[in-house]
């Protein structure tokens, strides 16, 4: 069993949702994660705040947020256990953020010690 990171990319992180929408979205996300955890395949997860974000550039210049500079922003990630990238992708298919057009979930296998040899 390998571990995969499912990375949530939002097309427009600035889009403001109503509290009602946020509540629905949050519940849907918790149900989605709960479903993975019920299969004993959830490892961990974190949401990433857009507020108070910084981008540090190669010349050590610091700018506020990734906003307006890149089209897509990271909204969060979870790490799951799966037999294959396909199984991990099948988890991703049910991710509620995909309800937003243009949003994506990227599936990446996490490198383990033995993968390096």
């Amino acid at each position, binding site marked *: 069993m390998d571990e995969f990171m499912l990375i949530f990319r939002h097309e427009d992180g600035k889009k403001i949702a109503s509290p009602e929408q946020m509540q629905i979205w949050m519940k849907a996300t918790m149900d989605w994660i709960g479903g993975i955890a*019920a299969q004993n395949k959830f490892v961990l997860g974190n949401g990433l705040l857009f507020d108070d974000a910084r981008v540090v550039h190669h010349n050590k210049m610091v700018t506020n947020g990734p906003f307006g500079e890149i089209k897509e922003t990271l909204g969060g990630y979870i790490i799951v256990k799966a037999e294959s990238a396909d199984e991990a992708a099948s988890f991703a298919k049910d991710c509620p953020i995909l309800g937003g057009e243009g949003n994506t979930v990227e599936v990446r296998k996490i490198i383990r010690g033995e993968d390096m040899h």
Partner: protein
Amino acid sequence: MQQQELIPHLFRTEFSRVSAVLCKHFGIDHIELAEDIASETFLLAMETWPYKGVPENPAAWLYVVAKNKAKNYFARTHMFHGKIAPELKQTTDTPAPEIDLSDKNISDSQLQMLFAVCHPSIPPEAQIGLALRILCGFGIDEIANAFLSNKETINKRLFRAREKLRAEKVAIEMPETAAIPQRLNAVLTTLYLLYNEGYYSESQDTVIREELCIEAMRLTKLLLDHPLTNTPAVNALMALMCFHASRLPARKDENGALILYQDQDEALWNRTLITEGAFYLRAASQGSALSAYHLEATIAWWHTIKEDTPEKWDNILQLYNRLLQLQYSPVAALNRTFALAKVKGNAAALPEAEKLGLSGNPYYHALLGELYQGIDNQQALQHLQQAWHLSKTQPEKQTLQQKIDHLPTT
């Protein structure tokens, strides 16, 4: 008649006090000796009291006898050592140390023994066994009954556990303050298992099962009474136990058969325990730490409201979502899926239920049997039958048989 009722109850509570104090007194190397002296003390009471009457202060009588027996033992071994190895030990005529049976020493000793028997070096089922023997005054027969095992197995298990404690030189003392959180976790796991052993055990002896629950609560109370171990997680565990225990009187019919939650008469639920549980749950919410016990206690609190409301099941579902993220268990996975079906309907829950990967678990097939009803009754039947075959106890088989009988044939 009255005496016969008095004695078992008295024995149970006093045995644990006497044996804990004696264990503390003699040290971890001589746990068995402490158990023996406690047993002999109670045996003497059983042989004497029926004929001479129960003494006015039975507890004090027991303490005096236990003290004397300990003193005699000390004198014997002291003499033995004095004859065998006089050069090695320069001990002059030291009097036998007094055994301290003050309330404070009793509760301190019990708490310290709780930490000692829940030492991570011995397996959980041995921890539970030792706790039952030393701290709850259970006989080997009763322990064997509770574990659906036999005397020899339990004796061997306890023997190995005592050996291990000796080998590890586990001290009968409070762990250092810095080590308490970790050691406390191990103690809580054992108390949780002890409670579940009573609440869900397959043993047919309902009296023993309920006593396991009560004893687990009594030991948890010991932790709550000490400032260093009165933590939010301990309060949460106590709340969980209270909420579950509130349903004990409603869980079985006059023949001892199990009554399922939805069929229980809520008038029989113990309101006092529910109120107590709410008190502990409030105490548990101080601080920011959220343990699995907090989540389970909150789920149990929702179950003290019998009425099915969308709000209730929505909350239970979210709590199980979080519980599973914190720590997976098949029971939590099954209960979460049941809650999901309550919130979103059977059809929506079925695909998730199929993914749980728990085939071979009777409760898994019982759940699928439930969810398939009205959607695919043939599948429902197959799963209920599978659950029936896998189920190990008669009451469960009966419940499943009733469900099979009531299934509409299509």
